[in-house]
């Protein structure tokens, strides 16, 4: 066993230095030079302040904004550190709901959300992604259907014509890559920034 120790020790240290330090640090350096914005987290600034990341969803609750999907992320309870409280779109603690298909809690939550959405836009089927939590709790996107579903509410809250808001949404739809990979989607932060940029009419 002893004659195994020298190669084991030397290779462990040397390969650790190569793969655990040299590799990530070199990659950090190179990526920072070639893709500085992306390496830093694709942050978006408005008026000199960071308003979020284009890849990370954020919580929108106002009638005036398009709202993303429900989020199952949580944070430590400020009054009792051993417990957690719901904190949607907590980008420091990603999490899904992990509720299974026969969970009563899931069924109740979805039922209530479907009813609320139906009240907002009666007669239109509720898009499934609008009442289900994402895997990360930080999904930046909704489906085009889910964005279009909210057009009447947002238009009313902002006193804009539905057509104008609808064409704004349609302009923000990202299709599948090469028409094949992924799913069509609308980035909520980009859409809402564009919405804030619309002049009142």
């Amino acid at each position: 066993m002893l004659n195994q120790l020298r190669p084991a020790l030397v290779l462990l240290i040397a390969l650790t230095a190569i793969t655990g330090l040299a590799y990530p640090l070199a990659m950090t350096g190179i990526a920072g030079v070639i893709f500085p914005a992306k390496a830093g987290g694709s942050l978006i600034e408005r008026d000199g302040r960071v308003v979020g990341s284009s890849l990370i969803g954020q919580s929108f609750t106002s009638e005036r904004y398009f709202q993303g999907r429900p989020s199952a992320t949580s944070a430590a309870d400020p009054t009792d550190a051993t417990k957690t409280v719901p904190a949607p779109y907590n980008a420091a603690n990603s999490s899904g709901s992990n509720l299974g298909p026969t969970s009563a809690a899931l069924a109740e939550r979805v039922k209530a959300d479907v009813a609320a959405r139906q009240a907002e836009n009666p007669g239109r089927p509720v898009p499934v992604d609008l009442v289900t939590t994402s895997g990360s709790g930080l999904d930046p996107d909704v489906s085009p259907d889910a964005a279009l579903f909210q057009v009447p509410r947002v238009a009313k809250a902002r006193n804009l014509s539905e057509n104008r808001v609808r064409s704004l949404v349609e302009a923000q739809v990202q299709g599948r890559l090469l028409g094949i990979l992924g799913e069509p989607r609308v980035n909520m932060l980009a859409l809402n920034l564009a919405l804030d940029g619309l002049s009142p009419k």
Partner: protein
Amino acid sequence: MTINGWIQIALFCAVVLALARPLGGYMTRVFTGERTFLSPVLAPVERGLYRVAGINSAQEQHWLAYALSMLAFHVLGFLALYALLRVQAVLPFNPDGQSAVAPDLAFNTSTSFVTNTNWQSYGGETTMSYLTQMLGLTHQNFLSAATGIALAVALVRGFSRASAKTVGSFWVDLTRTTLYVLLPLCMVLTLFYVWQGIPQTLGGAVEATTLEGAKQTIAVGPVASQVAIKMLGTNGGGFFNVNAAHPFENPTALSNFVQILSIFAIGAAMTNVFGRMVGDERQGWAILSAMGVLFLAGTAVVYWAESAGSPVLNSFGLTGGNMEGKEVRFGIVASALFAAVTTAASCGAVNAMHDSFTALGGMIPMINMQLGEIIVGGVGAGLYGILVFVIVTIFVAGLMVGRTPEYLGKKIEGREVKMAMLAILCLPLMMLGFTALATVVAAGLAGPANAGPHGFSEILYAFTSAAANNGSAFGGLTANTAFYNTTLGIGMLFGRFFVIVPALAIAGSLAAKKTVPASAGTFPTHGGLFVGLLVGVILIVGGLTFFPALALGPIVEHLAGGLGQTYPVGG
């Protein structure tokens, strides 16, 4: 299910197949010590390492020495990682002030990364410092993957050599795999991933003020370099809690496609390496075909189940499949495909929450793991895993016609079959044994987040994943407890080493045998009949053991869900 969905699946399979031969050719050159186009840069580094380590690269090892080297390396790696986890709080590269990791979690995590499982009882962004992520976890991602590949190569040498005493040098295989295969590919992949939007920074979490004026703390870090190896090395341990579902770990449909490709790339190419080293590439293609049959069948079921959705939720008027726990940019098909790939290989990364899959959609990943992850499988581990099944298949075929079975000119005798069965039986013992234990002790029953049959599935999935060295989870299970950290850790150790050591014993025993020329009575092992027989043996010997357990979990849940039954926690 849509036409576009099937096109995405077909495209994936086509690219995996297209990559297998060129990558297999390159890797064969690496393992046989030939020069490659990277040799001018890497050969001096390699020679330097051998000199300092006192390794004679021309000196090969008996299988026992090979196994001892591998174990010594793992023991040291385990101790180093454990120590790092315990003291990370006082070390540099810790901008978010992560504290020391508790002993049971440090044991579980060290075991997990050293065994290529990468089960995570913790959330990365809330637990691990950047130094730990890089020096501890990224580095073990490389070395556990390189170890798996090295062992597979040793076993292949067993088949390809005649009357030989040695199966190669562990130190050389480890070093060459790391330097020539994993590192260069990861450097390219890292830059690709950053281009797609994965962060690579040493800066701490970013504070943003959202459009509605709330504070949002956005965790970042040296993510891309870890994602590259976690996929390529089928490790699967995420930088963030939700792994590849996190937009920073998998931002686009393209990053997703490349990630699942890189999970399968080396594993599929290893079948070609096998074919080349035994002198008949058709033998490799036959094995890959058997893997392909099982893979497509499983993928189709997951895709169908997730597209159909949950009857309970559909009763509220929802259409469009099961989107709970899935990301919009991936949708149903890319999530279903990812789940099938990550559990067929021993990756364990997830881009959607398996816990929220439909009952049958979540059952296939479990079956993929319970079969021993031989469908392409972990890098190296998949090949030695399926070769163990090949030995049993050949044995069964030999019994049918009443002659001593042989494979690639090697007589398969009692010793090989015993070792193969030892490796195969270890998995159900760990998976089912610990699941049974956890369902009767209070500490085990405290774990599941879901009630009813789904709670049982959460436990079964955890021990399945641990023993199979996968690392994916039904994430609702509260696994960061002394009971689960310890039992899962033991499951991982046995699941790794009680497959590796018998596989090496087979390698040694085969290498020592003479090669007998093929005759009219030799069962051809490159045709459809062999592929069919292999698939049958895998399903019957490997799979049937688990049917009763699956009946209690996902199958009952599927039937109950179809009747609209739900289970309240505590009800």
